[in-house]
């Protein structure tokens, strides 16, 4: 810690007794809405409960689908499920498990645990988490319900075209997947923004990066990976939906498209996705093992290295899902090499946990059992992964039950087992009663045995030739015995889950006041006395294991001797600290409960779902209502600057910061990274299609004359200039406010004009997006530009309104700064698009 920081922080804790009414004011600021109105809550504990509950619900639903599949496959030539029903069920099982359970549940654990673990009172954007949750929940329920109307998709969870193109999947099922899942990804991205800002900017003072709990590291890397991986599948989803709805032929070979483009985009997301799912679970294990072994985590630094290496290497593996598609051998070799490389960080983590156990004395408990089960199952899964990383072996094992076995070993072993360990471990921090150890052990043994009995035989049936995604198999192949064993195992596993559910109902009593507490004598901050506002006062952290190394910390915090023992401004607050050394930098005022997030979520879900069933007018109405809700929500943000506030220990910090100190600036930067990744995926797709179908790229004579893009570019650049100029007019007086509005307004016109000119230029040459893949790509650039332009128009209008209302000035400038960030990015993206679309054909023509 730096000298200044030390001087600032080393002061004695706050004096006692604390002023009268301080605790009451804190509790009042954080009080929850009563009764059914709890659904308007936004704080992380309540949203965390909802989130975990919803994810578990989807786990159960998708698990029932799996049991149905196993019943159908238990005997050869079975007629329990029809072909079409089975095809829908296996598609939904995979889709719901991956998109509605796996990623949301680890995100939910982050929402629930992280703030308290970091010593923060809440996540930095509580309403955003609420919105993300409700969007996911409502959208997910609607999506699952398609099964009951015979409208579920049946193209497999990775939905390969041309099978999922309109010609071969004429119904609405594929559209439900594309629009439904596409929109649920908004939740994941919102979560990622929340987590990056939360982990890097709202830790307790003194919690430097190397004192940060390992779970926080994994959630940080998890969030970073989401930022770069999800956009690829979002783009793919957009492309396929545009193809299905309007005939833009991205994947239709006869018009220059390529089916493999989808596979590249999907798996560029899909492979990091599985590490996105695994890393938080590994983080949970890294919290549980030290507590159970009663010793600090061994190899902390090495584990951080392993996590970052995993995060990066996992982006270089995606082709190992498509080794059999005829891609040239050398390319396959690169991906085989990278797939081996990613095994090493996992090895480092496993041996670090073993080292921790060896350094301590492991106590036998349900969480320990689940961790040991995880070690066995995940290691086995990782090893079959190394096997299929070898290309020739994969040529046999790909798309067989060997892969089904592998993926379940790594996903169930690598995430579900740690998750159950986490439930049993953290229940005492959130519930008035702990879960039952007796039931827990029964759950473990049923799940562990059932899992291995169900999935180990699949390695064999796969090697005996049984492919994936088959609704039945013939008697003559003699796969019946193995399948029957698998079915029995599946039901054993389900029995374990049932025992867990019974235990939950009997014992879990979620609370926001006095949970049963630190029964395991754990060392991290979430085990201090835990209320809806986290700890009574935000502790000064001096160690990686604060509750072990700082005796009396919990009592000191509870007595109000540390930071923020009450509320300075009367509303909910937390402390913003510097990303690496956790030096206090500002006081962050947080919103309380309200209806705008849930309404915005419901109307956004409505927009996407109504579009799917082609009720366009209703969809647009729903979308507009969503925008209205969001505008109201935004209007209530950005509270006005107040005098510097004392947060305790004699330290005063500003109550309003802008520029790179602002947490919302950070959020906008993360969003720009998402937008940039999306655009990069587009550029990749453009160049990729050119290598596949150069014949549909136009000769220069067929492209619009250069004057058109030049004019468009000038308009775009002008709009940026106008925005910059508007920034100079921020001081609040009438003339400047007028200038500000005029400048912003003109910038809007220039921005929209730049886009319109480009579209018009293409259109008047007779180029139509459904003509061929190249034309579709041209219009796609404008489509991506349009999405940002629309957002900017709304944001600019909002900025004008804030300015007129006197709520935007030189000091209170966050709204303008964020507008500027997105604006300049959009202009750069637009300029690059013009260069690509008009320059590239001339370069190669």
């Amino acid at each position, binding site marked *: 810690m*730096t000298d200044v920081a030390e001087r600032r922080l080393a002061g004695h804790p706050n004096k006692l007794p604390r002023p009268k009414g301080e605790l009451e004011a804190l509790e009042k600021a954080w009080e929850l809405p009563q009764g059914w109105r709890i659904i308007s809550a936004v704080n992380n504990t309540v949203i965390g409960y909802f989130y975990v509950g919803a994810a578990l619900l989807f786990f159960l639903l998708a698990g029932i689908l799996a049991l149905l599949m196993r019943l159908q496959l238990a005997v050869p030539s079975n007629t329990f499920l029809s072909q079409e029903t089975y095809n829908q069920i296996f598609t939904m099982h995979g889709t719901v498990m991956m998109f509605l359970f796996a990623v949301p549940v680890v995100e939910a654990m982050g929402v629930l645990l992280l703030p308290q673990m970091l010593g923060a009172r809440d996540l930095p954007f509580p309403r955003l988490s609420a919105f993300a949750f409700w969007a996911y929940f409502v959208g997910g329920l609607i999506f699952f319900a398609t099964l009951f109307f015979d409208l579920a998709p049946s193209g497999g969870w990775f939905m390969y075209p041309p099978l999922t193109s309109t010609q071969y999947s004429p119904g609405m099922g594929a559209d439900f997947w594309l629009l439904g899942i596409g929109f649920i990804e908004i939740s994941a991205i919102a979560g990622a923004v929340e987590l990056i800002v939360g982990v890097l900017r709202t830790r307790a003072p003194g919690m430097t990066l190397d004192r940060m709990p390992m779970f926080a590291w994994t959630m940080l890397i998890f969030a970073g990976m989401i930022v770069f991986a999800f956009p690829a599948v979002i783009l793919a989803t957009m492309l396929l939906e545009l193809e299905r709805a309007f005939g833009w032929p991205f994947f239709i070979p006869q018009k220059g498209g390529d089916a493999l483009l989808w596979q590249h985009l999907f798996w560029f997301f899909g492979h990091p996705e599985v590490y996105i799912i695994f890393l938080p679970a590994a983080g949970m294990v890294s919290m549980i093992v030290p507590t159970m072994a009663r010793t600090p985590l061994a190899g902390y630094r090495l584990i951080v*290295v392993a996590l970052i290496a995993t995060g990066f290497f996992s982006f270089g593996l995606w082709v190992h899902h498509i080794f059999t598609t*005829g891609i040239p051998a*050398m*390319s396959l070799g690169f991906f085989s090499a990278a797939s081996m490389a990613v095994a090493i960080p996992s090895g480092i983590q496993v041996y670090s946990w073993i080292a921790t156990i060896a350094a301590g004395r492991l106590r036998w408990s349900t969480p320990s059992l689940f961790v040991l089960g995880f070690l066995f199952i995940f290691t086995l899964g990782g090893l079959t992964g190394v096997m299929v990383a070898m290309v020739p072996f994969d040529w046999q094992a790909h798309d067989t039950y060997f892969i089904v076995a592998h993926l379940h070993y790594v996903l169930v072993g690598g995430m579900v087992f740690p998750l159950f360990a986490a439930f049993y471990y953290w229940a005492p921090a959130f519930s008035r009663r702990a879960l039952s150890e007796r039931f827990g052990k029964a759950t473990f043994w049923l799940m562990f045995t059932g899992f291995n009995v169900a999935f180990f035989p699949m390695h064999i049936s796969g090697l005996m030739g049984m492919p994936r995604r088959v609704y039945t198999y013939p008697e003559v192949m003699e796969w019946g015995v193995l399948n029957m064993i698998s079915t029995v195992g599946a039901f054993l596993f389900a029995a374990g889950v049932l025992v867990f559910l019974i235990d939950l109902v009997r014992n879990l009593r979620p609370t926001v006041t006095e949970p049963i507490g630190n029964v395991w004598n754990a060392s991290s901050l979430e085990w201090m006395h835990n209320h809806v506002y986290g700890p009574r006062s935000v502790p000064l952290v001096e160690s990686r294991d604060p509750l072990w190394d700082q005796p009396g910390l919990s009592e000191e915090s509870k007595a109000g001797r540390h930071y923020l023992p009450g509320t300075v401004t009367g509303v909910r607050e937390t402390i913003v600290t510097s990303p*690496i050394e956790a030096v206090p930098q500002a006081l962050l005022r947080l919103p309380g409960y309200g209806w705008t997030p849930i309404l915005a979520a419901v109307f956004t879900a409505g927009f996407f779902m109504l579009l799917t069933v082609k009720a366009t007018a209703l969809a647009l109405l729903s979308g507009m209502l969503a925008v209205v809700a969001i505008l109201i929500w935004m209007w209530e943000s950005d509270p006005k600057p107040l005098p510097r506030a004392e947060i305790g220990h004699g330290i005063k910090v500003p109550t309003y910061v802008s520029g790179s100190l602002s947490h919302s600036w950070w959020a906008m930067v993360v969003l720009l990274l998402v937008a940039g990744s999306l655009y990069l995926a587009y550029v990749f797709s453009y160049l990729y299609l050119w290598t596949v179908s150069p014949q549909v790229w136009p000769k220069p004579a067929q492209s619009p004359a250069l004057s058109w893009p030049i004019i468009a570019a000038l308009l775009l650049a002008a709009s940026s200039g106008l925005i910059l100029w508007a920034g100079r007019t921020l001081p609040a007086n009438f003339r400047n406010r007028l200038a500000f509005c005029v400048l912003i307004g003109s910038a809007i016109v220039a921005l929209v004009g730049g886009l319109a000119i480009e579209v018009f230029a293409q259109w008047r040459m007779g180029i139509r997006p459904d003509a061929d893949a190249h034309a579709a790509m041209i219009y796609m650039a404008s489509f991506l530009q349009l999405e940002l332009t629309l957002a900017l128009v709304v944001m600019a209008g909002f900025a004008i309104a804030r300015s007129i209302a006197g709520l935007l000035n030189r000091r209170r400038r966050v709204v303008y700064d964020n507008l500027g960030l997105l604006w300049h990015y959009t202009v750069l993206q637009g300029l690059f698009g013009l260069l690509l679309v008009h320059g590239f054909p001339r370069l190669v023509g």
Partner: protein
Amino acid sequence: MSPARPRVRPLVDLLRLFVPPGIWFAQFTTVYLAEALMCTPPVARPGALIWTGAAATLTALAALIAFAFMQGRRADRIERTGAAFLHDAALWLALLSGLAVIWTAFPFAVLPTCTPPAG
């Protein structure tokens, strides 16, 4: 523990952790892109592929070694503040990334260029 000019460590110290794996990612992307471009009809220059790959690999390894060296030097100058471990972490990442770079170069050395599977 009292340096002359205390500072709040800038974010760049954390971002520096991402340099070594970023170098690997750059080498990986370069060789993959080179293969994709040079083996498709529009470009079709298999010979250049070998040179590109070798150059990318050697550059990446050199960059990693240079980075590790500079990190080592930097570590001496940095005050032992709370997150000093970031320096060590970057060195370990350089090692892992170097391994990945070498492995990525294997197929280069062994496999024929531009041959689709099963001739």
